[in-house]
C-alpha cells in the first residue's frame, strides 16, 4: 500500500489510525449493513462510503477519539438515507398506525428485555430478523450483533435510552411472534401434507 504522506504505516499518524480502524471494524460494519438492508453489494458500498466520509471528516481537521461509535453513526445515517431512497415507511408513520407512544413504557428495563430474549431462539431469530421494520431491526442488530449498549445506541440513533429499550423490547416481541407464527405454519403444512 502506498503511503501518500510518507509517514510510515506504523502507529502515530492519522493515516495509520484510520487504517487500523478499517482493519478492525470493516467486517462488523459490513455485517450490520447487510442485516439492515439485505443487499451485499450495497452493503459494501455503504461501508466504503462510511470510511470515506470519516476520512473527509478527519481531513477537515476534526479529531476522532473513538472510531467505533463514530463509524456506526455514519453508517447508520447512510442506511437511513438508503431507506428513504427506497421509500420505506417511516418510523413515525409506523407508530401513528399502531398508536403507540414510545415514551410511555418507563417500567421497561434490561431485566425485562433479558427475560423476553431468553424465550427466543437466536438461530430462528436470525432468519426472521430481516422481516422486522427497520426501526426494530436496527436496534436489535446494534444490541445483539454489534454488542452496543442502550446508551451507545441512543447516541447513534439520537433517541433517548428509554425509547431504545422500548424498541428493543418491541422488536423482540415481534420477532417471537413471527417465530411462533412460522412454526405454526410449518406444522399446519406438515399436517396437510400427511
Amino acid at each position, binding site marked *: *500500500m*502506498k503511503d*501518500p*504522506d510518507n*509517514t510510515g504505516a506504523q502507529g*502515530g*499518524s*492519522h*493515516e495509520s*489510525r*484510520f*487504517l*487500523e*480502524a*478499517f482493519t*478492525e471494524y*470493516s*467486517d462488523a460494519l*459490513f*455485517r450490520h449493513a*447487510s*442485516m439492515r438492508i439485505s443487499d451485499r453489494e450495497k452493503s*459494501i458500498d455503504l*461501508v*466504503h462510503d462510511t*470510511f*470515506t466520509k470519516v*476520512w*473527509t471528516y*478527519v*481531513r*477537515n*481537521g476534526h*479529531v*476522532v*477519539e*473513538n*472510531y*467505533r461509535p463514530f463509524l456506526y453513526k455514519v453508517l447508520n445515517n447512510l442506511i437511513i438515507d438508503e431507506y428513504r431512497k427506497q421509500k420505506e415507511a417511516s418510523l413515525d408513520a409506523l407508530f401513528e398506525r399502531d398508536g403507540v407512544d414510545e415514551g410511555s413504557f418507563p417500567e421497561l428495563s434490561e431485566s425485562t*428485555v*433479558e*427475560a423476553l*430474549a*431468553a424465550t*427466543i*431462539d*437466536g*438461530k430462528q*431469530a*436470525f432468519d426472521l*430478523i430481516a422481516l422486522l421494520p427497520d426501526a426494530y431491526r436496527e436496534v436489535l*442488530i446494534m444490541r*445483539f*450483533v454489534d*454488542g452496543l449498549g442502550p446508551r451507545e445506541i441512543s447516541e447513534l440513533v439520537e433517541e433517548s435510552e428509554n425509547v431504545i429499550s422500548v424498541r428493543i423490547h418491541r422488536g423482540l416481541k415481534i420477532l417471537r411472534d413471527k417465530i411462533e407464527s412460522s412454526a405454526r405454519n410449518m406444522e399446519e403444512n406438515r399436517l396437510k401434507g400427511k
Partner: protein
Amino acid sequence: MKRFSEQLKKKSETIRLRASEKAELQSRIVAFMEYHPLPATVKSVPVPKSKVVLEPYRLIAIPRAYVRSFVGVTALLFIVVIPTMAESAIPGDILYPVKVNFTEEIRSTLSTNSYEKVVWETTRLERRISEARLLAQAGKLTGATEAEVLAAVQVHSDKAKQQIESLRTTDADGAALAQMTFATMLDVQSSVLKSDDSASTTEGKSTVALASVLDAGYTEASSDSSVDAVSVVRLLAQLEVETTRSYELLSSISDSATEQEQTDVRRRLADLESKIKTATDDTSADTELVKKELRNAWTDIQKLISYMTDIDVRNSLTVEKLVPAVLSDAEKLAQSIQKYELANTQLQRIKFGAPLITEQDIVAKIEPTIPKVADLLTIATTSMYVNIDEAKVAVDEALALTESMLTLYQFPELVEMPRTDEVAATTTIPVDDTEGSTTASTSTETTE
C-alpha cells in the same frame, strides 16, 4: 438473553467480507486517501493517544475441551504433583515452604481430634529433626539454618503442648498418654542425634544444639506428674491397640528390615506382652506399681513403633539400645558367664602386664583397682547360680572396671604370656555345682 445473544451473534458472524472483497475495499479507501491527502495543517495536529481499538476485553474463543484439559492438568499439578515433590524438600529447597506451610498445614486440618493433632505435631517435629540431620550430614546445617530448625521444633513442640492441654479438658487419660508419647519421641530423637557421627562442633555438621533442645523438652515433658493419673483400664486398652498396630507395622517392614531386626522387634513385643500380663495378673500388687509397669510398657511400645516407622532411628540405634530385651534367667546366666569370662581374661592380662608400666600415675590407678575386680568376680562366682541378678550386677561392674583399665595402658595380649598353672586356674569358667549341672548354653543375644 446471553444464549439468545450468543446464538444470534454466532449466526450473524457468517456474514462477513470475503478476503477479496475486503482487499478491494481497502484499496478503494487507500486510493481515496491518496487522492485526498491530509493537509499540512491537519498533519501537525497531534494524533490522539487513545487507542483505536477501545474495547477493554477481546473475546477469544477457546474450545471447552482445551479449557477442561488445562484446568485438569493445573489441578493435578498443584494438588498432586507439586505437594508430592515437596515431600522430600529440606530447608533451603524451593518447594520447602510448600511442604511446611501448605501440605503439612492441610494435613493438620484433617486431624479430627486433639489426640490426632498431637500425634501429627509430633510427626512434624520428627520431620524437622530428620531434615536437620540430612543437612548436618551434608555439612549444610549453618547457624542460620539451625536457628530456623530450632524455631520450627519449638513451634511444633508448643503446638503439641497446646493440643495436650486442650485434650486434658475433655480426656485427661488421653492427654496423659499423648504427653508420654511426646516425651518418648523427644527422647528417641535426642538419642538418634547423639549417636550420629555428625554430632560434633564442626560448623555445618553440629546437631548438638538441637539435641540439647530435645533433651530439655524431654525433661519437661517427662516430669509432668499428670501422667501418673492414667487409669489402668485405659492404659490396658491403649496398649492393646498399640500392640496390634505394632504387629501390623512389623509385617509391613518385612521387606526393608533385616531378619535379625525383625526377630529383635518380635522378641521385644513378646517381652512387652509378658510384662503387661505379669503386671495385671498379680492381683495383690499395688495399683500404683501396676500403673508404673504399664506406663513403662507404653513408653517401650512407642519406642518400638518409632524404630519400625522411622528409618533414621533404625539406622542410628539398635533395638537393644532403645528397648533392652527382658532376659530370662537362663539368658541372664549365659550372658553373665560370657561377661565373667571376658572380665576375667581382661583381669589376667592386666595383672601380668602391670609390672611393665613405668608411669606412676597409671600405676596408682591400676594397683587398687585390680583387687576390686577380683572381689567382684568372686561375688559373681558365688552368686551365679543362687542370685543371678546379683551376679549380673557384679560381673557388669567388674567388666566396666577392666575395660576402663585397658584404656589407660597398652597391655600385651594374654596369648603372648607364658601359660602357667596360675593362669590356667584363674581362667576357669565357674561351674554350677549346686545341682550338679554343667555350664548353661551360650546366649545368642547381642549386647552393646
